């Protein structure tokens, strides 16, 4: 960590690639992310290991708290757009573009690629967040 690097991860059978954000971008994204999720929830999700995080997401109470936090923040401003903005340097091998699935930027095709797949969106954003804002 320290300089920008490329990371890859398979999520639900799709191979994602992302680059860590430059520091100036990270400084812009981080406060918006915490405003969206709340400090405790963000810390909880990004500091938790992948296996434990899956268990957390299966817990109705945690999922409920998360949805509640996100809804509250999203109602106040364009909070949800931070999820799209944080995927600026992220691409995948199977991105929905029209009727096809091709290698492309998920930021460019955000609406179509994640339509109806909000849990998948959350998983991708959690991974990008962990790559950028934690120091495992």
């Amino acid at each position, binding site marked *: *960590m*320290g*300089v*920008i*690097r490329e990371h890859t991860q398979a999520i639900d059978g799709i191979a994602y690639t992302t680059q*860590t*954000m*430059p*520091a*100036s*971008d*990270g*400084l812009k994204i*981080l*406060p918006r992310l*915490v405003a969206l999720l709340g*400090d405790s929830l*963000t*810390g909880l999700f*990004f*500091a938790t290991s992948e296996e434990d995080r899956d268990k957390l997401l299966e817990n109705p109470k945690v999922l409920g708290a998360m949805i509640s936090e996100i809804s509250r923040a999203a109602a106040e401003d364009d909070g949800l757009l931070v999820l799209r903005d944080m995927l600026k340097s992220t691409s995948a091998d199977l991105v929905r573009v029209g009727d096809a699935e091709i290698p492309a930027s998920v930021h460019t095709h955000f609406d179509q690629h994640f339509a109806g797949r909000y849990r998948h969106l959350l998983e991708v954003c959690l991974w990008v*967040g962990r790559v*950028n*804002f*934690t*120091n495992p």
Partner: protein
Amino acid sequence: MGWPRKFHEPLTRKAIPSWPRAATGGGRHKGIQPPNVPWDLFVACANGDGIDAVTFQALHTSIDLDGLYDLIEMSDAAESWKSAAIMNTNETRGNG
């Protein structure tokens, strides 16, 4: 790489919040804080005599958030060595 960091640390951690006071001698006269530049970027780029444009550019292109805090940590440590050297010199001269 310094101490272990938590996710929310970049938001809450201000490595050298007293730096402007120290830089101006601790008196009632204060300089301005940069209103349009994130404080962390400013601290990482200020080298005492001016601004390091190369570092500023790198923080927009090739250095990530973790690297930014490494830079601040190193700068903070270097400043502390200067202060310690001055205090040690004063003590040696019997002024401490």
